[in-house]
């Protein structure tokens, strides 16, 4: 049954899956490593945006609940205008 939002020991496939999801639906740019001194990676920002959009706990991390939500069948139209 769905576990709670706990940080995932994500294997690459989950991480890759999440990155693709965020690129497709949240207009995450390719390079999301922290740059120019930015403390928070773009992936963390986009994760927070997605968690907020779906009413999940906003952690900015790829926790089990967020990954579960990403894997739910859905519409392919982005959640944020590109």
């Amino acid at each position, binding site marked *: 049954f769905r576990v709670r939002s706990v940080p995932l020991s994500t294997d690459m496939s989950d991480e890759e899956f999440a990155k693709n999801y965020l690129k497709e639906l949240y207009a995450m740019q390719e390079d999301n490593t922290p740059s120019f001194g930015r403390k928070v990676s773009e992936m963390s920002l986009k994760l927070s945006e997605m968690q907020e959009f779906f009413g999940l706990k906003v952690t900015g991390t790829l926790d089990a609940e967020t990954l579960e*939500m990403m894997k739910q069948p859905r*519409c392919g139209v982005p959640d944020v205008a590109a």
Partner: protein
Amino acid sequence: YRADSSSNKWPTNKLTYRIENYTPDMSVAEVDDSIQRALQVWARVTPLKFTRIYSGIADIMISFAVGDHGDGSPFDGPNGFLAHAFGPADGLGGDTHFDDDETFTFKSSNGYNLFLVAAHEFGHALGLDHSTDPGALMNARYTYRDVDSFVLPRDDVRKIQALYGSNPEIPDKPEPTPPPTPNACDPRLVLDAVTGLRGETYFFKNKFFWRSHPQMPQTEQFLIKSFWPELPGDIDAALEDPSADLVYIFKGQKVWALNGYDVVNRKSLSSFRLPATVKKINAAVYDESTGKMLFFVGKSYYSFDTNNKKMDKGYPKQVEERFPGMTGKVTAAFQNNGFTYLFSGPRVFEFNESTLMRVLGNKHFLQC
């Protein structure tokens, strides 16, 4: 040019559509019917009119495709993305594509119901974005809903009418009222049922439930059918039997036994030895200290012994006998950390055994 919603709208209320090809999952007639009914969902509440054409370029070109189909938004195989549509514009605008790696269905809740997916996508084709309202048709996630009784939710009606206005033709019979998504902040909110479930607490109202975890301040709201497609809305009661890792959902004479996501058994009220005169219960709670299930009917309650599967003698009794101060009808009930919470309308009575400790509101449990 990517599948994308846009806040545009069509400059005209008269739109054409064309079905370019078909999925092998359904008959041609079933696809035609699903598409036509999905467009009617929006036509019914706006001045929009849809006319089908069979050749040439329509405003809304409808097709089934797999993988990369040349529009810059490739599909991803089974599950995941089910379909997409383009917002109002010339050319690709309005076009709607369905991922034919999915299994589309006409009526059943297996596979993905084409009518529901199409109605959602046509919302985009008309200019709507995704909604954060978990009950909205335009919520991004696919959730099965009963197709025959489908009524466009209020959030969607409000948004499409903001673009195109309402339907000027007064229908000969009044439209069913668009169902609002229950609001945790509504001071008059009367919950249908409450139960624990593996350490969390679920609060049911209409077709929805809120899910609350003891270590997390916020609650999330979901459609019941997004977890359990078989369950109805507007349930009467719910209780968890932690020793059996089961949750029982009650509606009328019917009882569903859940183990996590799975409906593992279907019973009737009589299997809990309630008298035949009891046609429905209003609330139910499992008392961990005694292993008894308490069933509330109006201002009375029954006690069912789960160990020997018998109704305890001398019941029904008045609720107030066991819970002094609980004078109203119990509408929901659950136990948590040794306390028993009895909901009566929007108020919640907290008991420690038979001692009334506090009178609370829903907001004590539901983040507002």
